[in-house]
C-alpha cells in the first residue's frame, strides 16, 4: 500500500482516507483471540485503524534475546487487525510510556553502564551511543515484523519526547533507522506539549491531547480545559503546514492510580459527553486523523505496570477491561458512522462570527460534499437555545455538541439546516437512506419544504424525490441506535454488537432486523439457549491453605542465591521482578538498621516480623522516598548471629514521563549501626513462582487455593472476575493457573474486582491467592490458618453474549 498525504488527509493508494483509530495494548489484552475480539468490536463501531504500541520490555529479557512466541506473537495480533479490516498505526518506541513498567524500556538496559535511557537525564539532553546501539537491536527485531503487513499506514518514533535544548540528533537518527529498515509509510512523533516539537524531524506532525487529567477536576465546570483543542488547527498549521492535522492520542478515557478515585468515578465523570466533545471539536478543527486513547481497557498482569497504576488498566475506554462495550463506545460509533456517511477528508475553516456565553461555534466548508458544517457545543449546565443565524434556532442539551449540515445536497432533496444527529447512510446511484437519531428538540429544514420535527418513533420515515432519485430519512431512537450496526451495505438492528463477518451477539432473546437497499427490511429471531442467571457471583470453595514463605524459615538454605556486592537495589542486583528477597546474618552487636525500599517491604529477624511497611508515595508526579531506622535490642537479636530476611515488593519502575525510568527499586538503602558488614544474598519472585513452594512455618505469606471449572464454548463470549469485596486481608497477589493476574492492596480501596483474563482460562482452573499479612493480624499460626478458611472470595460473570452466525 502506498501512503501519501497532503495538508488535508492521508491517502492510501491515492484515495483519501479519514483515520478513525483506537489505541490497543496487546500486552494488556494478551493472546490472539482477545485481540481479535477487540478488533472486531472496533471495526463494528466504525473504526478503520488500530494504534499499537510495541513494548520492547515485554519481548526482551536480556540483550540479544527476543521472544515473539505464544501470547507474545505480535504477528498474530497484526494479522488479527488485518483480518478485521483495520489499518495499523505502529508505535514501537523505543520508549512508549503507556503506564507500563519502565515506559517499555527493557530492565536490562536500565542498568547498563554508558546507557542513558532516552538520551536524557532529567530535562538535559545527553547523547548515548550505547543506547542507540540497543535501539538498533530492537528495531532490527521489531521492524521486519511490522513490515510484513501492508496495512501499516503510519509509524511513530519515540513518544512524548522533549529536552531543554531540543537537539535533533536523536529524533533524526530514529527516523533514519526506521527508513533504513524499510519503513515506507509516513513517520510521525507524538508531541505531548502541542508546541510543534520535532515537526521538522518527521513527515507528519502529531500531538496528544488530554484535557481531563485530574479526576478531582470537574471538566464541566472548568470547561476551559478544551482551550487547546479549540485552537488546535492553528497549532497544526503553524507547526507543519503541509501535513494533515493528526491527534495521535485523543482522550477517550483516563487512567487511575493507586491513590486514585477508582474507575467508576472517572467513567461517571467523563460520561459519553466527553468523547463526543473531544471528537467533534477535533473535526471542527480540521482533524482527519484521530486516535482514541484508549479504545480498549486492559489488565496489568505479570509485571506490566509502572509504579503508578494498579492491576486494572480499564482506562474508562469505550471497550472496557472485560471487553464489554460501554456508553462512550456507542457515542464513538455514532460519530464514526457519520464519518462513513459523508466524506470529511477535505474541509476548510469558514469565517463565522458568533458569540454566546459558553457556546463554541465553528463553521467549516466541505470541499467534497460542497456544503458547510456548523459545529455547536453547549458548555452550559442547562438546555440552551442558540440562534446561529437570524431565522434558525436550535437547542442543545448541557455539554452536548452537534454537527449541523448547511445546504447539504442529497439525492432527493437539499438539507438547508439540521441539528439532528445523522447516524448512518446507505446509498447507491439513485437511492439513499439516511438514518437519523430522533430527538424532540431537533429538526431538519429541507429546502422548499416544511420543517421536519425530530419528535419521532423508531423506524418513522419520510421520503423525498428529485429528478428520479430518492432520499429517505429513517428515524431511530437513541436506544435503538446504540443497538444498530452499520455493516458494509446493510444496517442490523437490535444486536448488542456484531462482528465484521455478520455474526450477531445478543445477551437475551432478541428479534434482529436487517435493512439493505435491495431487500429493505427483514427479520430473524435469536433465541439464547446458553445462559443461566449469572447476575450474582458465587463464593468459591477454598481447597487448601498453606504458609508459602519458606524463605523466612530459620533453616532455609539460600547459599545458591545471588551474593550481593555493595549495591542492593533491583537494577544493581539484576533482579527485576515485583518481589525480591534479601537474606543475611546479622550479629547481635548491631544496634540499629536503616533502610529504604521501594515500595512495600517487611523485615524478619529469626523468623519474626520486626517491620512491615508500605513506603509507596507519589506527590506531584514524583515519588517521595522514605528512609526508616529500626532499633534492634537483645530481644530481637537473641542469637550471636541472627537470620535477617527482607521482602520487598516493587510496584514497578517509573514510566519515564516525568521521572527517570531507572529510578532505583527494591532495597535501595541498607545500613547498620555500628557499621557492620553483612553479606546479603538475594533472589526474586515468590516461592510458588520459582517452583520452590514447600510447607513453611512462617505465617506471614499464606497461599489460599481454590479450583473452579469453566464451560468454554465457541459461540459464547463471556467475561469473568473474582471479587474481593468482602476480603478481609490487606494485601494479596493473585495467580490464575500459575500466572500472576492481579495484586490487591486494601488500603488504597481502588480495586476489588479482578478480571479472569480469558486467554489464561482453561476448563479446569486453579486460583492461588498469596496473602501477605502483618504480624499483628496473626494471633497464632494455627488460628490464622483456620481463620483463612473463612476468607470470602467470589467468582462472577460480568457479561455473556451468545453469538449467532
Amino acid at each position, binding site marked *: 500500500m502506498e501512503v501519501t498525504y497532503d495538508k488535508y488527509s492521508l491517502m492510501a493508494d491515492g484515495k483519501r482516507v479519514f483515520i478513525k483509530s483506537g489505541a490497543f495494548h496487546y500486552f494488556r489484552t494478551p493472546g490472539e483471540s482477545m485481540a481479535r475480539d477487540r478488533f472486531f468490536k472496533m471495526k463494528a463501531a466504525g473504526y478503520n485503524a488500530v494504534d499499537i504500541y510495541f513494548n520492547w520490555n515485554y519481548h526482551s529479557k536480556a540483550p540479544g534475546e527476543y521472544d515473539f512466541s505464544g501470547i507474545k506473537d505480535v504477528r498474530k495480533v497484526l494479522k488479527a487487525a488485518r483480518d478485521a479490516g483495520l489499518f495499523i498505526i505502529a508505535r514501537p518506541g523505543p520508549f512508549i510510556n503507556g503506564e507500563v513498567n519502565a515506559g517499555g524500556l527493557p530492565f536490562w538496559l536500565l542498568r547498563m553502564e554508558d546507557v542513558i535511557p532516552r538520551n536524557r537525564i532529567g530535562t538535559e539532553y545527553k547523547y548515548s551511543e550505547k543506547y542507540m546501539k540497543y535501539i538498533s537491536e530492537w528495531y532490527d527485531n521489531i521492524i521486519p515484523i511490522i513490515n510484513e503487513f501492508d496495512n501499516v499506514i503510519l509509524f511513530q518514533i519515540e513518544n512524548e519526547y522533549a529536552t531543554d535544548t531540543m537537539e535533533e540528533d536523536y529524533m533524526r537518527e530514529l527516523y533514519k533507522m526506521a527508513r533504513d529498515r524499510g519503513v515506507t509509510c509516513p513517520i510521525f512523533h507524538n508531541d505531548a506539549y*502541542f508546541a510543534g516539537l520535532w515537526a521538522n524531524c518527521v513527515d507528519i506532525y502529531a500531538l496528544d491531547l488530554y484535557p481531563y487529567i485530574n479526576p478531582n477536576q470537574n471538566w464541566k465546570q472548568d470547561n476551559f480545559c478544551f482551550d487547546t483543542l479549540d485552537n488546535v488547527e492553528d497549532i497544526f498549521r503553524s507547526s507543519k503546514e503541509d501535513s494533515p492535522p493528526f491527534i495521535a492520542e485523543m482522550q477517550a478515557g483516563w487512567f487511575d492510580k493507586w491513590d486514585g478515585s477508582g474507575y467508576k468515578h472517572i467513567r461517571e465523570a467523563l460520561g459519553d459527553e466527553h468523547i463526543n466533545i473531544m471528537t467533534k471539536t477535533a473535526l471542527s478543527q480540521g482533524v482527519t486523523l484521530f486516535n482514541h486513547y484508549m479504545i480498549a481497557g486492559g489488565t496489568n498482569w505479570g509485571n506490566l505496570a509502572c509504579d503508578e497504576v494498579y492491576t486494572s488498566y480499564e482506562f474508562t475506554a469505550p471497550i472496557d477491561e472485560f471487553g464489554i462495550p460501554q456508553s462512550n463506545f456507542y457515542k464513538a460509533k455514532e460519530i464514526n458512522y457519520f464519518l462513513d456517511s459523508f466524506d470529511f477528508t477535505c474541509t476548510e475553516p469558514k469565517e463565522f462570527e458568533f458569540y454566546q456565553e459558553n457556546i463554541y461555534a465553528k463553521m467549516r466548508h466541505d470541499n467534497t460534499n460542497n456544503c458547510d458544517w456548523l459545529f455547536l457545543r453547549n458548555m452550559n449546565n442547562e438546555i440552551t437555545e442558540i440562534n446561529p443565524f437570524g431565522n434558525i434556532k436550535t437547542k442543545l442539551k448541557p455539554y452536548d455538541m452537534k454537527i449541523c449540515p448547511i445546504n447539504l445536497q442529497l439525492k432527493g432533496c437539499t438539507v438547508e439546516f439540521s441539528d439532528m444527529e445523522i447516524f448512518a447512510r446507505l446509498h447507491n446511484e439513485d437511492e439513499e437512506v439516511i438514518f437519523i437519531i430522533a430527538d424532540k428538540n431537533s429538526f431538519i429544514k429541507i429546502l422548499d419544504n416544511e420543517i421536519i420535527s425530530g419528535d419521532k418513533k423508531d423506524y418513522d420515515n419520510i421520503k423525498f424525490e428529485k429528478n428520479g432519485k430518492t432520499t429517505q430519512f429513517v428515524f431511530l431512537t437513541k436506544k435503538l441506535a446504540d443497538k444498530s450496526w452499520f455493516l458494509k451495505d446493510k444496517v442490523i438492528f437490535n444486536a448488542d454488537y456484531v462482528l465484521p463477518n455478520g455474526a450477531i451477539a445478543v445477551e437475551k432473546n432478541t428479534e434482529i432486523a436487517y435493512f439493505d437497499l435491495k431487500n429493505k427490511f427483514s427479520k430473524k429471531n435469536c433465541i439464547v439457549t446458553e445462559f443461566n442467571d449469572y447476575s450474582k457471583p458465587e463464593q468459591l470453595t477454598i481447597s487448601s491453605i498453606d504458609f508459602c514463605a519458606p524463605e523466612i524459615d530459620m533453616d532455609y538454605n539460600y547459599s545458591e542465591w545471588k551474593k550481593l556486592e555493595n549495591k542492593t537495589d533491583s537494577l544493581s542486583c539484576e533482579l527485576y521482578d515485583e518481589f525480591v528477597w534479601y537474606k543475611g546474618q546479622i550479629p547481635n552487636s548491631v544496634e540499629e538498621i536503616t533502610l529504604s525500599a521501594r515500595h512495600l517491604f517487611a523485615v524478619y529477624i529469626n523468623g519474626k516480623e520486626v517491620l512491615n511497611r508500605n513506603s509507596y508515595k507519589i506527590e506531584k508526579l514524583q515519588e517521595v522516598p522514605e528512609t526508616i531506622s529500626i532499633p534492634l535490642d537483645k530481644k530481637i537479636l537473641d542469637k550471636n548471629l541472627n537470620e535477617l530476611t527482607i521482602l520487598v515488593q516493587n510496584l514497578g519502575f517509573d514510566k519515564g514521563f516525568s521521572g527517570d525510568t531507572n529510578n532505583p527499586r527494591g532495597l535501595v538503602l541498607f545500613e547498620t549501626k555500628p557499621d557492620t558488614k553483612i553479606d546479603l544474598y538475594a533472589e526474586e519472585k515468590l516461592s510458588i513462582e520459582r517452583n520452590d513452594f514447600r510447607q513453611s512455618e512462617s505465617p506471614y505469606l499464606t497461599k489460599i487455593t481454590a479450583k473452579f471449572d469453566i464451560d468454554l464454548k465457541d459461540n459464547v463470549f463471556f467475561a469473568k472476575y473474582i471479587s474481593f469485596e468482602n476480603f478481609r486481608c490487606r494485601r494479596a497477589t493473585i495467580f490464575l493457573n500459575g500466572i500472576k493476574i492481579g495484586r490487591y492492596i486494601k488500603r488504597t480501596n481502588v480495586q476489588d474486582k479482578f478480571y479472569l483474563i480469558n486467554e489464561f482460562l482453561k476448563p479446569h482452573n486453579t486460583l492461588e491467592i498469596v496473602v501477605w499479612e502483618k504480624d499483628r493480624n496473626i494471633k497464632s499460626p494455627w488460628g490464622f490458618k483456620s481463620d483463612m478458611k473463612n476468607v470470602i472470595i467470589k467468582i462472577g460473570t460480568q457479561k455473556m453474549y451468545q453469538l449467532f452466525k
Partner: protein
Amino acid sequence: MVVVPEFLIRRIYQKGSLKKLDNGASLILKNVLGPGFISGFNYVKINDIVYSPEEVKFITNGEELLGTEVSEAAPIAFRLGQTGTLIMEGKTSITDGKNKIEIEALNPEAGKVKLTVEDNCA
C-alpha cells in the same frame, strides 16, 4: 522536576514586561502552553533578591490575589492566552541592564514549575 522543556516554560514570560516599581518590580505572564491552574507561588527571585509568597501579588482576570492566597485548595484558573501581572513589593531588586528572573510556581498535576529568564527593565 517535570519534563517540560525550559524553552517552553520561558514562553510564558512576556518579554519586555519587567518594570521597576518604587519598592519592587512587576512583570507579565501569558499562558501560551495550555489551559490549567496555578496552585501556588513558591517564590519570585529577581537577581539575588527573593520575594516570598506574601510579597507577591498576581493580578489576572480582574482579580488581585496575594501569593499566599493561591494554594492547592484555592487554585486559580489560568486559561490558554490569559495574561496576568505579577507584582513584587517590599524590596528593590531591579538593576540597569540585564536582570535575572526566577519564578517557581505550582501546578496541581505537574507540581513545581520553574521559569528562568533574563530581561532588561522596560
